[in-house]
């Protein structure tokens, strides 16, 4: 547990430090995220060896105190967060086009890292509210780094995020008023399916879905993610939307009474299928590259939503593994995709997808990164996305009654293949290539490729990953 706390406190302390110390911010953040990654990795090893650990903060026990819990999933997510932060920090420091030099990006990204780490460890409804609010404010502050054109989407994101938090908070208040506790495991033992519970769950769910940009509450996401600086888009897509998803999953899979969860699961699963198709369709139609990548986030979150819905519907805990594999694979792939897209967009001098003509020649590594990351989003073997989809498909296919859901997954796969290869095929156009405005930066392109290679490497560890994540719920 000490290690996990260190992984949380290192970026937090760095964020405070950087408020006063402005020089060499990039180097400090890289060192801090690397340290955080190392201790998170050690924490993961510790959990694998010794099992779940809990900490009552300040020595106050529940129900009065706040409880931190470090289980396999939390440790994995801590490691994942630190890894993504490290990769993005290196890019932000080294790339000419990152738009983040000498800005407030550095303390903010550390704060983001710290608040997410706290979110992964918390098991307390109100503590989650605080981390969510922090996450939202930091995310908005990071979006406006890219200048006045982002102010509009940022304000809209901020207001929606605040409204969502208040929605969630009202739900928390109702639950507390009814049961008198905030700890999720205590609540789980007391909760029953009455009107207060239903209303509270509805309010909390709406708030969290809005924050996680789950269909149909996703409309703020494409503008906000596409207008942010490249490094920030990567962090937002890979990490920020996963925080509320984590809480949503915790609420429904650990706390909600079964008789409420089962009908809700159907709605979640249907929303997931629609998200896959609608997000994929929007990504296929948009003329702008970063918007395409942002819509792909909406679509990919549909897989997570589908897994969550079916998990609740059938009460099959194995589907948790699918959900979290999707989150990990999508996060890494999306970092790669946003970095590659941002780098290509800046070098080729246009935000349009059509400017990528001939990009396999002008920026081969970035384009390759985009394609490899896209392969994982499609779910081509042997990538992390494939493993996730495989785990999701197993219970779907085992019983002929469930086959219609598998059809939804198939259509989602085809949609994602269509928007990924829309870009890739264009990049092979040699007849009329778009000449770059700057000399392409090889190092930044390799950085974009790295997370994509990691997500394909995930497949090699898929067996332990699946086993760990399946155990999380037991």
């Amino acid at each position, binding site marked *: 547990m000490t290690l996990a706390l260190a992984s949380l406190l290192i970026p937090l302390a760095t964020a405070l430090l950087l408020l006063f110390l402005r020089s060499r911010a990039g180097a400090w953040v890289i060192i801090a995220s690397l340290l955080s990654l190392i201790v998170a990795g050690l924490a993961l090893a510790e959990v694998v060896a010794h099992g779940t650990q809990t900490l009552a903060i300040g020595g106050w026990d529940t129900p*009065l105190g706040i409880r931190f819990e470090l289980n396999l999933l939390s440790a994995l997510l801590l490691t994942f967060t630190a890894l993504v932060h490290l990769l993005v920090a290196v890019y932000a420091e080294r790339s000419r086009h990152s738009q983040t030099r000498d800005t407030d990006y550095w303390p903010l990204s550390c704060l983001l890292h710290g608040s997410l780490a706290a979110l992964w460890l918390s098991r307390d409804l*109100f503590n989650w*509210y*605080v981390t969510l*609010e922090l996450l939202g*404010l930091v995310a*908005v*502050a990071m979006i*406006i780094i890219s200048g*006045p054109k982002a*102010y*509009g989407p*940022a*304000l809209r994101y*901020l*207001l929606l995020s*605040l*409204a969502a*938090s*208040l929605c969630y*908070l*009202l739900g928390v*208040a*109702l639950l*507390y*008023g009814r049961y*008198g506790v*905030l700890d999720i495991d205590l609540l789980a033992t007391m909760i029953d399916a009455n009107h207060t519970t239903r209303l509270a769950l509805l309010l909390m769910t709406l708030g969290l879905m809005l924050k996680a940009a789950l269909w149909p509450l996703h409309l703020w996401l494409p503008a906000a993610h596409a207008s942010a600086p490249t490094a920030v888009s990567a962090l937002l897509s890979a990490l920020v939307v996963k925080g509320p998803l984590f809480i949503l999953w915790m609420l429904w899979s650990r706390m909600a009474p079964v008789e409420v969860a089962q009908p809700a699961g159907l709605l979640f699963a249907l929303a997931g299928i629609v998200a896959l198709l609608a997000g994929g369709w929007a990504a296929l139609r948009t003329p702008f590259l970063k918007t395409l990548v942002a819509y792909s986030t909406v679509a990919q979150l549909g897989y997570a939503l589908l897994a969550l819905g079916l998990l609740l519907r059938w009460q099959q805990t194995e589907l948790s593994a699918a959900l979290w594999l999707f989150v990990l694979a999508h996060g890494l792939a999306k970092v790669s995709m946003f970095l590659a897209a941002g780098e290509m967009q800046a070098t080729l001098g246009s935000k349009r997808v059509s400017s990528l003509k001939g990009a396999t020649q002008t920026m081969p590594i970035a384009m390759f990164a985009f394609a490899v990351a896209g392969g994982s989003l499609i779910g081509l073997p042997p990538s992390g996305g494939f493993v996730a989809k495989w785990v999701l498909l197993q219970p779907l296919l085992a019983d002929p009654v469930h086959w219609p859901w598998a059809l939804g997954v198939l259509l989602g796969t085809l949609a994602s293949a269509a928007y990924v290869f829309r870009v890739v095929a264009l990049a092979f156009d040699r007849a009329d290539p778009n000449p770059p405005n700057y000399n392409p930066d090889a190092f930044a392109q390799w950085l974009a490729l790295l997370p994509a290679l990691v997500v394909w490497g995930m497949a090699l560890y898929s067996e332990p990953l699946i086993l760990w994540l399946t155990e999380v719920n037991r």
Partner: protein
Amino acid sequence: MSSTLIFLCAGSVLWLMGLHGLARLHHPIRRIMAINIMGSGTFMVMIALANRGEHSDPVLHALVVTGLVVAVSATAFALRLAVAISAHKSGKQQAPEPNE
């Protein structure tokens, strides 16, 4: 008990009014105010719930205080952003751009 109920209802009505305002209004300042009304409604519900038992519940009071701190800072941030937007817009009106 009945005063608790009145406060509960009033809080819920405020919350709904705030939500309605957020959905219907367009001016940034108005929307920020709508959010604050929503926040006040939430806090009112929480204060009312704190009074539900024999003794008033200190945990909910603590939560409200925390919530107020968060709400104040978020409002400050949103206002700053709204000012920046209007400054940017008025700057633009002096030198209009075709694609706005």
